[in-house]
C-alpha cells in the first residue's frame, strides 16, 4: 500500500498553482482536440509532448493526463452531433447518440456522455490507486521470462483486437518490432540496420516514432478532403441538468461498464475501442430494453462512455507497475516519463510512491473539470466542429517537428518523424493501424531483451517460459484473452 506520507505528498503536489493551471489548460485542449474533426486525444498528446520537456515533471504529467481525460470524453461530441466519432473509442456512441440528436435530444445525450465519462474516469482512477501497489509488489519478483510473457500478451492482444484483420494487426506489430531493432542490440551491443549512419546508432527515439505515427498521418489523411470540405450545420444545444436519481437507477450499467473499461485498459495492447464495444454489447445483452439499443438508448451511451474513459486509469496500471503501456496514449506517457528521467516499472512506485497519489488527484480533478466544461461548454461545440483543418494542419506539423527535435536535440529525429508519419499514413490506408506499429515499437526492446536473457539463462531452451508458474499462467491467459477478444471483436 501507498504510505499516508506518499498520499499526502501527492495531494500537496497537485495543489501547486502551475499544476492546477496546466490541468485546466490540458482538459480544455483535450476537449477541443477530441471534439475537433480529424483530431484525437492521441494527436493532442503527440503535439503537446514537446511543450512538457521544459516543465517540471509534475506539471508535465498533470498537463498530459488532463489532455488524455478531456480528449477521450470529447470524442463523443462529434459522435453525437454529426455521427462521426472523434476517436475509434467513441464509435459505439454513434449508435445511440446520433439517433437521440436526430430526435431533438442532443443536449440530453451530451449530458449522459459527460456524466458517464466522469464516472468511468473516477472509477478507474481509484482502481489505479488501489491496485497498482499490489501489482507492483508482485511484479518485483518477475524475471525475464515473466516480462517476456507479459510483452507477448501485449503484442498478441494488440494484433488480434486492433483493426479488422488479425494478420494485418500482427504484421503492424512486427513492423513496430522491426523499427525498435534499429541501433544497438540491447544484449550484445551489436549495431543493426544503421547503414553507417552515426545518428542511427542509438536507434530511433520513442518521441519521433510516436509523434510520427499518431499525429502526422492525420495531416496526410486530410489531404484527401482538400476541395471536398462540407459545412457542418448543427442545431443549437442546451445540456440538461444531471439528476442524481437518474444515474443511480442506472448504477449497474455504469459500474459494469467502468469495470470493463478498467480491465480492458489494463490489458497491454488493448484500449478504448475494445472497451467501449465490450461494454456496449454487455449492456445490450443484460438490458431490460435491448430493443432500444441503436435507436437512442440512454444505457447505450452510458455504457460506451463510462467504459471509454475508464480506460484512462486502467491503461496507466501496466505502465506504472510494469513499464508496459496499456494503449497508444500510455505509450506516449511512457515517453514523457522517460524524458523526465523516471523509469516506469515495479521500482517506480517504490522509489517515488507519491507519484501514484499525484496521478489519482490529477485524474480526479481532470474528470471533475471535464464534467463542468462538458455541461456548461456544450453550446460552443458547433463552433469547434466547424474549425477548418487548413488552419490546424500547418501548426500540427510544426509542433510535431519541434517535438521530434526537442526529445534529443537531433534533426535526424525530425526527418525520421516525417518519414514515419508518411509511412504510417500509407500503412493505415492499406489496413495496418498505427497503434499496432506504435505498441510493437514500444514493446520491442522489452520483448527482445527479456527473450534473449531468458534463453541465455535456460541455455537456449524455450521450456523456461512454461516451467515458471507466473510465466505459464500469463501465456495461458494470453491465449484465452486473444481468443475471447478476437471472437468478441468479430461479433462487434
Amino acid at each position, binding site marked *: 500500500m501507498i504510505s499516508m506520507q506518499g498520499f499526502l505528498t501527492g495531494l500537496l503536489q497537485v495543489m501547486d498553482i502551475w499544476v492546477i493551471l496546466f490541468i485546466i489548460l490540458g482538459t480544455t485542449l483535450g476537449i477541443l482536440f477530441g471534439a475537433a474533426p480529424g483530431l484525437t486525444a492521441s494527436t493532442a498528446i503527440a503535439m503537446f509532448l*514537446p*511543450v512538457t*520537456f*521544459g516543465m517540471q515533471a509534475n506539471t508535465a504529467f498533470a498537463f498530459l493526463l488532463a489532455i488524455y481525460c478531456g480528449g477521450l470524453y470529447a470524442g463523443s461530441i462529434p459522435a453525437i452531433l454529426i455521427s462521426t466519432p472523434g476517436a475509434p473509442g467513441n464509435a459505439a456512441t454513434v449508435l445511440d447518440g446520433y439517433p437521440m440528436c436526430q430526435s431533438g435530444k442532443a443536449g440530453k445525450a451530451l449530458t449522459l456522455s459527460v456524466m458517464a465519462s466522469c464516472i468511468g474516469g473516477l472509477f478507474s482512477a481509484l482502481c489505479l490507486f488501489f491496485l497498482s501497489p499490489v501489482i507492483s509488489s508482485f511484479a518485483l519478483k518477475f524475471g525475464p521470462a515473466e516480462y517476456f510473457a507479459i510483452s507477448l500478451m501485449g503484442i498478441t492482444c494488440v494484433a488480434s483486437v486492433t483493426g479488422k484483420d488479425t*494478420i*494485418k494487426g*500482427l*504484421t503492424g506489430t*512486427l*513492423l513496430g*518490432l*522491426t523499427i525498435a*531493432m534499429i541501433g544497438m*542490440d540491447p*544484449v*550484445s551491443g*551489436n549495431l*543493426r*540496420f544503421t547503414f553507417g549512419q552515426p545518428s542511427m546508432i542509438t536507434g530511433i527515439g520513442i518521441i519521433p516514432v510516436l509523434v510520427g505515427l499518431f499525429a502526422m498521418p492525420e*495531416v*496526410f489523411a*486530410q*489531404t*484527401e478532403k*482538400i*476541395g471536398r*470540405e462540407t459545412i457542418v450545420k448543427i442545431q443549437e444545444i442546451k445540456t440538461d441538468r444531471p439528476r442524481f436519481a437518474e444515474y443511480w437507477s442506472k448504477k449497474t450499467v455504469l459500474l459494469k461498464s467502468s469495470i470493463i473499461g478498467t480491465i480492458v485498459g489494463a490489458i497491454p495492447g488493448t484500449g478504448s475501442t475494445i472497451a467501449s464495444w465490450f461494454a456496449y454489447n454487455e449492456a445490450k445483452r443484460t438490458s431490460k430494453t435491448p430493443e432500444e439499443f441503436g435507436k437512442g438508448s440512454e444505457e447505450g451511451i452510458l455504457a460506451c462512455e463510462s467504459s471509454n474513459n475508464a480506460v484512462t486509469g486502467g491503461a496507466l496500471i501496466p505502465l506504472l507497475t510494469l513499464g508496459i503501456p496499456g494503449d497508444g496514449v500510455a505509450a506516449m506517457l511512457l515517453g514523457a516519463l522517460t524524458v523526465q528521467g523516471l523509469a516506469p516499472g515495479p521500482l517506480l512506485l517504490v522509489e517515488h510512491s507519491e507519484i501514484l497519489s499525484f496521478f489519482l488527484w490529477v485524474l480526479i480533478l481532470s474528470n471533475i473539470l471535464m464534467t463542468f466544461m462538458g455541461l456548461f461548454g456544450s453550446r460552443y461545440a458547433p463552433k469547434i466542429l466547424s474549425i*477548418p*483543418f*487548413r*488552419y490546424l*494542419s*500547418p*501548426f500540427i*506539423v*510544426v509542433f510535431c*517537428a*519541434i517535438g521530434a*527535435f*526537442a526529445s534529443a*536535440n537531433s*534533426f535526424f529525429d*525530425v*526527418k525520421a*518523424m*516525417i518519414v514515419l*508519419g*508518411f509511412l504510417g499514413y*500509407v500503412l493505415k*490506408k*492499406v*489496413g495496418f493501424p498505427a497503434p499496432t506499429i506504435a505498441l510493437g515499437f514500444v514493446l520491442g526492446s522489452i520483448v*527482445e531483451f527479456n*527473450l*534473449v536473457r531468458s*534463453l*541465455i539463462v535456460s*541455455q*537456449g531452451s524455450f521450456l523456461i517460459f512454461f516451467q515458471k508458474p507466473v510465466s505459464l499462467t500469463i501465456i495461458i491467459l494470453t491465449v484465452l484473452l486473444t481468443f475471447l477478444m478476437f471472437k468478441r471483436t468479430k461479433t462487434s
Partner: protein
Amino acid sequence: MKKADIITGIVLIIFSILGIMEISTWKELANVSISIKFYPSLIFGAIGLCGAIILGRALLKGNIYTVEFRWATLIPVAVVILLYGLAIEYIGFVIPTLLFLAMLMYLFGERRWKYIVLISVLGAAMLYIIFIKMLAIQI
C-alpha cells in the same frame, strides 16, 4: 491503388528477404551464447510469413479491395513537409516556419492572402516565443 493486398503482400515479402539478407552479412560475436541473428531473423521471418498469408489470401480467396490515394493533393503536401524538415536544419526556425505555415495553408485550400499572411506571421512569432524563447529549445 487496386489490389492493395497483393501489392502489400509482395512488398512485405521483399522487405523480409532484404532484412534476412542484411542479417546474413553480420558476423557472429565470440562471447555470446545466443546468436545475434536469432531475434532479427525471427521477426523478419514472421513478416515474410504474414506477407505470404496476405498475398495468398488475396490471390486464392479473391480478397482484393481498392485503396484510393489522392496523389495530386498528397504529394505537394508531403514534399513541402519534407522540405520544411530539411530547411529548419540548414536555414533556422523562423523563416522556414513562416513560409511553411503559409504554403501549407495555401495547399489545404486557403486562398485569402490576408488570412494566410496574418496567421503565418502571428503563428511563427507565437511559436518562436513559446518554443525558442520560453522553453529554450535550440532548434
